[in-house]
């Protein structure tokens, strides 16, 4: 089958063009390195079907990061057969720099089409490009497009058949590009736009930090507002008024007790269902992911997607760079960390934007241990929330200190040095409502697909363990550690076992144990730190390799015992 490879610099809108061509939605954002692996899709050209490949952006064919390596390998292994073509997606507002990759692609001698994307932005940035002239010089089709609105995409597709080998010959790449720019591009003088002024202020040496604090405070407030509103007005009424009566009828049918009743509905508390503590598949198994975690996930991903598409994240990376550098990672590592707050899985993938193996190891280990995902956050709030702000800040304060110390320690003991930040800062853009909603939907769907099956599996697993008295048995075995070092009741080991699958099950398992505030704080920290979850573990194993993952896991266990033990002494 004919293959179409979408090639271009980072952040030129390849993923948006890809979605337009194939109808397959992939996450696109306004910063370099959103796409860290390739995505396949297919499209119809006339009567033919063609495969379209979206790959990570790259500045050249000599890669700088793991994501760029994925791209360079795919470009270098691309063969001229079956009518395969390159579609070189270019950011029209940055023609000169983008043409450098075009020159390298020309040398690959594979038929080429050039797509001048972000065409709409050239108008208000005072750039005038003569696409026809560029087409004559390069000898390949050159088509202006605006991926975000879909303008020019049909035109682009109609030129796929006309892809050719370029006739352009050159010796010195930059000299050749200089001459092309001279002929095809004209710049008009213009005044600074509001966006640019805002852009400069947000990385200003004095104003940058206060602005970032306002942005972060606003973000948290919006996430809380969305989460609390959805819970109070939609999800709790839904579960309490509609679902609970259905379950109560079912409970009576099943005889209010027994093995099947306990697995499906769980234990009744004072003759009633308790969605948190009943621990049945249809009660806790559904309530925790849907009514406790999902509302905050929606708020979080809405805010995160807005920040991503606006172009603020790389600027935040610049502001925190020198602090992060002391921890062995540079400012851009803020991206995997923030993604990890939603779910560690995409966070672990996003670590690919970091240049060296060393940085990826440090960032992934820090994230897996000390960045709580939403399931873990729900668990923390569920366990210690009733003790108020003091208890919560003890948990999050400890995790933050662990995060910092861990990075500091790894940076000290690991060989080598991490590279400094060296990255393009995208212009501010007003996020498109449709793109934002699609992205939110994709991420929420991914959460539901991931969380609900694992949660149900976790609840089922836990019931089996209890029924077979396995938890009692392991509890006795591990008592020296759980009670001796961490100061928790031995029954708490059940939460740790089921926590391999899903952390939020632990709320229901630990709540009936009548633990003190100190014990709950320690349990929250320990459960967050000792192991991410099986899904994250799998991705990390694939990203870091067996050897590094074993090291990382050893650090997790050691750090958990150390921190839990120290807290037990002081609390």
């Amino acid at each position: 089958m004919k293959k179409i490879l979408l090639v271009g610099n980072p952040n030129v809108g390849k993923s948006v063009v890809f979605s337009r061509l194939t109808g397959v939605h992939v996450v696109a954002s306004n910063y370099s390195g959103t796409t860290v692996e390739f995505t396949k899709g297919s499209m119809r050209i006339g009567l033919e079907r063609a495969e379209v490949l979206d790959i990570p952006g790259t500045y050249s064919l000599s890669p700088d990061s793991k994501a760029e390596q994925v791209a360079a390998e795919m470009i270098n292994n691309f063969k001229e057969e079956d009518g395969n073509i390159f579609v070189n997606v270019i950011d029209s507002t940055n023609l000169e720099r983008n043409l450098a990759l075009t020159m390298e692609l020309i040398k690959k001698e594979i038929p080429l089409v050039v797509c001048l994307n972000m065409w709409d932005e050239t108008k208000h940035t005072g750039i005038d490009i003569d696409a026809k002239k560029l087409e004559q010089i390069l000898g390949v089709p050159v088509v202006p497009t605006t991926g975000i609105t879909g303008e020019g995409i049909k035109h682009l597709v109609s030129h796929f058949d006309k892809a050719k080998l370029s006739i352009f010959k050159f010796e010195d790449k930059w000299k050749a590009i200089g001459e092309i720019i001279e002929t095809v591009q004209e710049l008009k003088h213009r005044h600074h736009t509001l966006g640019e002024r805002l852009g400069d202020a947000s990385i200003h040496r004095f104003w940058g930090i206060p602005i970032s604090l306002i942005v972060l405070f606003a973000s948290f407030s919006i996430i809380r507002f969305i989460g609390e509103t959805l819970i109070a007005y939609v999800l709790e009424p839904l579960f309490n008024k509609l679902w609970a009566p259905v379950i109560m009828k079912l409970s009576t049918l099943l005889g209010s007790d027994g093995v099947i009743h306990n697995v499906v509905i769980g234990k009744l508390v004072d003759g009633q269902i308790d969605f948190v503590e009943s621990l049945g598949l249809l009660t806790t198994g559904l309530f925790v992911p849907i009514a406790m975690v999902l509302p905050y996930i929606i708020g979080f991903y809405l805010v995160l997607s807005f920040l991503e598409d606006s172009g603020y994240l790389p600027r935040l990376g610049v502001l925190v760079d020198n602090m992060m550098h002391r921890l062995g990672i540079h400012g851009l590592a803020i991206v995997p960390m923030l993604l990890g707050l939603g779910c560690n899985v995409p966070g672990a993938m996003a670590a690919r934007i970091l240049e060296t193996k060393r940085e990826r190891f440090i960032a992934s280990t820090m994230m897996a241990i000390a960045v709580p995902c939403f399931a873990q956050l729900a668990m923390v709030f569920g366990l210690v929330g009733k003790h108020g702000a003091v208890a919560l800040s003890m948990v999050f304060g400890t995790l933050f200190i662990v995060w910092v110390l861990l990075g500091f320690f790894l940076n000290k003991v690991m060989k080598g040095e991490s590279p400094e930040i060296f990255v393009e800062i995208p212009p501010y853009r007003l996020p498109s409502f449709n793109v934002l909603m699609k992205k939110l939907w994709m991420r929420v769907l991914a959460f539901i697909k991931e969380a609900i099956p694992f949660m149900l599996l976790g609840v089922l697993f836990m019931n089996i363990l209890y029924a077979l008295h396995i938890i009692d048995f392991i509890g006795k075995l591990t008592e020296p550690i759980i009670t001796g070092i961490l100061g928790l009741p031995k029954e708490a080991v059940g939460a740790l076992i089921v926590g391999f699958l899903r952390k939020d099950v632990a709320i229901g398992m630990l709540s009936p144990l009548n633990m003190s505030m100190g014990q709950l704080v320690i349990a929250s920290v320990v459960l967050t730190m000792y192991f991410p979850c099986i899904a994250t573990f799998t991705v990390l194993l694939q990203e870091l390799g067996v050897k590094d993952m074993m090291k990382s896991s050893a650090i997790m266990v050691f750090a958990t015992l150390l921190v839990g033990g120290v807290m037990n002494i002081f609390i």
Partner: protein
Amino acid sequence: MKNKLFSKIHNHHGFKHSNDNNDLKTIHNVKDGEVAKIKDVIGGKHFISKAESLGIRIGVQITKISSQMMHGPITIKVGQSQIAIGHRMANKIIIE
């Protein structure tokens, strides 16, 4: 540590540069909002090629946008795009 690293760096003419670059003006010496022309980019082949692919090469005009406190990164404008550069890397970009 810093000095050791910098003594290892040779530019492509074979000169050694110290950490301070007393004799040479780097983008650290440009004020926010000022325009300057790049005279040389020194460092390893890898750094030079990465700089080049981001548009930072000899003869190109840049505008300094900001620098962060406590040896944080420098932000410059090259052509139509903005680039953030680590503090020590910025030492390797010499201006006229």
